[in-house]
């Protein structure tokens, strides 16, 4: 496909089932952000889901060495080669055009890919309990030991469309021997389609990894047909699945930064700005709120000045860093922001955040608001663009406002405070000092180890 041609063919995204690519009659047109048809996604009926799931269940996993090689090979292909007819650049272009995510997010996804796929096994091993071995043949089972085993055979993923980097997470499950079915988001089906295609090209069988695009009504069938599932969504989705032990819901991140008085915020301003705006500000690991001990105004002002300088560009521009949406969607988000921000002091975006590109799309410009107190409800409002709430904080307020957080960066010398934050169950990750909330590394948990959900230990003695 041509990157810039005005009259290009629509990209065909088939379902990838146990008998190979499957083109359905029920096709969903995926429009680009200007509203023009860009791709055709084959939606599968419930029967197709059920049959794919039983094929996955019947299949054996690839032997360990082979599957690790295949994952690594798929990672290299994903990042650099033509997969399913799309070069890496075509793929990036497609993601940007359809999702409006800026080019930088696809760059980051590609960077992360190789890092994760080369070390998928070693990363997974970090999560193995020290009392457990990988294989019952291990000599340690002679005197009795735990053996680390899968909790099931088939893992389903309702993939998110908010950032292409998210897909590195479920790849871990393949290293562990799971057979995997991914239901793509219609907002960005290109990344999972590319992954499953690359994995098959690299040696995974059509009955070991599958792509199952479905309409909303059929989506639950994908979860139901699997042994375990990971589902991305909003608070509603988290509530729906919170009582099911076989489903791992992935909700809003509400990541935060805390800077105490003993720290000099000017020296970590780069980190704050990056935390808010990297990944186009659309990831769960982007900072939603910054808490600062003392007067928040100077910090809010400094963040606003920095974010104001980010350019408004079409998403597929290699310099693009801000997300772009169809104009009406952008206006809706803007109205929501303005209504939410009532009672706060705007430092950036107070009059609106929509920057009309004149082609039916608009850039979502950053927003910085200062809220009156640490308990302001706005600090939990996560929006899909660089949008940050700056709040005052004091030691007397304590940990309360920092709860319910995926990644918390703390800039402080107060070790007692750090103890309390590390001990707080509703904070998933605590980063100390000059680390952005979007910091990630292979082998380090993202929201607990995914393996804690996928694996269990079993006693074995012989």
């Amino acid at each position, binding site marked *: 496909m041509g990157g810039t041609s005005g009259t290009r063919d629509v990209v065909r995204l088939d379902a990838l089932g146990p008998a190979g690519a499957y083109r359905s*009659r*029920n096709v969903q047109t995926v429009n680009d952000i200007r509203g023009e048809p860009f791709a055709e996604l084959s939606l599968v*009926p419930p*029967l*197709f889901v*059920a*049959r794919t799931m*039983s094929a996955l269940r019947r299949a054996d996993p690839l032997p360990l060495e082979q599957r690790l090689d295949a994952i690594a090979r798929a990672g290299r292909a994903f990042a650099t080669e033509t997969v399913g007819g799309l070069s890496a650049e075509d793929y990036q272009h497609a993601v940007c055009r359809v999702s409006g995510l800026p080019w930088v997010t696809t760059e980051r996804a590609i960077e992360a890919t190789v890092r994760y796929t080369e070390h998928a096994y070693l990363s997974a091993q970090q999560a193995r309990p020290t009392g457990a071995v990988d294989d019952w043949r291990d000599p340690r089972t002679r005197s009795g030991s735990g053996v680390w085993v899968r909790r099931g055979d088939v893992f389903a993923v309702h993939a998110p469309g908010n950032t292409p980097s998210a897909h590195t997470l479920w790849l871990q499950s393949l290293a562990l021997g799971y057979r995997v079915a991914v239901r793509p988001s219609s907002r960005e089906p290109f990344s999972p389609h590319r992954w499953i295609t690359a994995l098959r090209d690299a040696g995974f069988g059509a009955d070991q990894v599958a792509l199952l695009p479905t309409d909303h009504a059929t989506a639950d069938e994908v979860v139901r047909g699997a042994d375990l599932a990971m589902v991305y969504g909003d608070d509603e989705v988290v509530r729906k699945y919170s009582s099911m032990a076989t489903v791992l819901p992935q909700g809003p991140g509400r990541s935060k930064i805390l800077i105490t008085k003993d720290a000099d915020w000017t020296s970590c301003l780069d980190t704050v700005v990056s935390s808010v705006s990297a990944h186009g500000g659309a990831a769960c690991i982007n900072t939603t709120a910054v808490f600062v001990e003392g007067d928040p105004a100077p910090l809010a002002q400094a963040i606003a000045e920095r974010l104001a300088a980010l350019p408004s560009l079409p998403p597929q521009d290699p310099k693009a860093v801000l997300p772009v949406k169809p104009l009406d969607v952008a206006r809706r988000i803007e109205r929501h922001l303005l209504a939410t921000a009532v009672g706060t002091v705007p430092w950036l975006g107070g009059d609106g955040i929509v920057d009309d590109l004149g082609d039916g799309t608009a850039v979502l410009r950053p927003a910085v608001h200062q809220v009156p107190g640490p308990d302001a409800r706005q600090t939990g409002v996560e929006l899909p663009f660089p949008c940050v709430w700056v709040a005052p904080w004091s030691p007397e307020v304590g940990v309360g406002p920092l709860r319910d957080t995926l990644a918390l960066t703390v800039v402080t010398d107060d070790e007692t405070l750090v103890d309390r934050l590390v001990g707080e169950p509703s904070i998933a990750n605590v980063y100390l000092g000059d680390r952005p909330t979007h910091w990630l590394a292979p082998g380090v948990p993202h929201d607990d180890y995914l393996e804690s959900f996928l694996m269990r230990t079993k006693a074995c003695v012989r």
Partner: protein
Amino acid sequence: MVDDIDRVLDTPIGDRPDPDEFVRAAMRWHFGPGTGSPFWLARARTLDFDPLTDVKVVDDLALFPNVCDELRDVRAEDLVPRGYGEHPDVCGFFESGGTTGRPKRVVVLRDWFLRSQEWISTNLDAHGVPRGVNWLTLLPSGPHMAGYAYPRLARDRGGHGFSIDMDPRWARRLVSAGRAEDARDYSGHLLEQARDLLRSQDVGLLAITPPLLERLAADDELTDLVRAKVKAVIWVGTHMDADTRDLLGGEVFPGVRLIGCFGSTMMMHSCAQRVTEDAGEVVFDPPSPYITFRVVDPDSGRPVAHGGRGQVVVNHVSRSFLLPNNLDRDEATRVPGPRGQVGDSLADVAPVQVFDGEAVVEGVY
């Protein structure tokens, strides 16, 4: 005495009586003081037209109001045309599924029932469905017509009927109450009974609702049993999307005939799909003039163009019953009927999402 009046009403379906003459005869029957039902005779007094003089052709049936809602409360005996005499041969008072509110009730008399069954059988012959095999039916039983008619069709065609109880209203109630898992359990309960029959008995034909057929096709043992024993599968009642049909006909049950039957208790019949070469197309032709379809824009009530989508209006006109202008719960693509048929044929039938203000719930039915 039935035979004495307006014999055109007793024409076999395949003989295609003159539709307008047929409709006029039906008006004389249903609105004649000695032959019409108490329900229609009373209802006639509140009509703003005279069925005896104003209904001259099939299209004039559109003059009637949709009386379906009244069929929820009317006394069943009052539905029986008086012309059948003191001892009418009533097959049953059958009820709608209750998808859209409280059940509606119709009467089916033997003469229509036999005519309907014979026509379905003729259609199944045209599809190459074998005679002399046993049938397994997983269809709404109890007050619903399908569970009455299909096992008898098995017998008429020289086989035996094995049937399993199905209560679609219970399944639907579970789904409406957010108890989807319980509804699945209920389907599972039905399929376990089917498993037992398929394992132990000679079953050459399966008549089943589409949701249950899909569940069955996801079960390896049941799929193998059907492949090994069953020559034809008839799916009855609700719709089935083209992708699912392709999968069932192609990879799940290769070599097994798969035939759709569109019908409902309120139609008092089910129409087997048209025999065509194109596997992707499922078209239903009604046995006109007994049953006729119109595909209309639900807002204006006017017919949509050929190829357009609209809501289905069904007329049932027989000696047994008159139910004109019944706005069905389904929508469909309007396609031309074969030569000699009055009214439209239907393709891609699918349930409308909202009907009379109540959301339509699809369960096992």
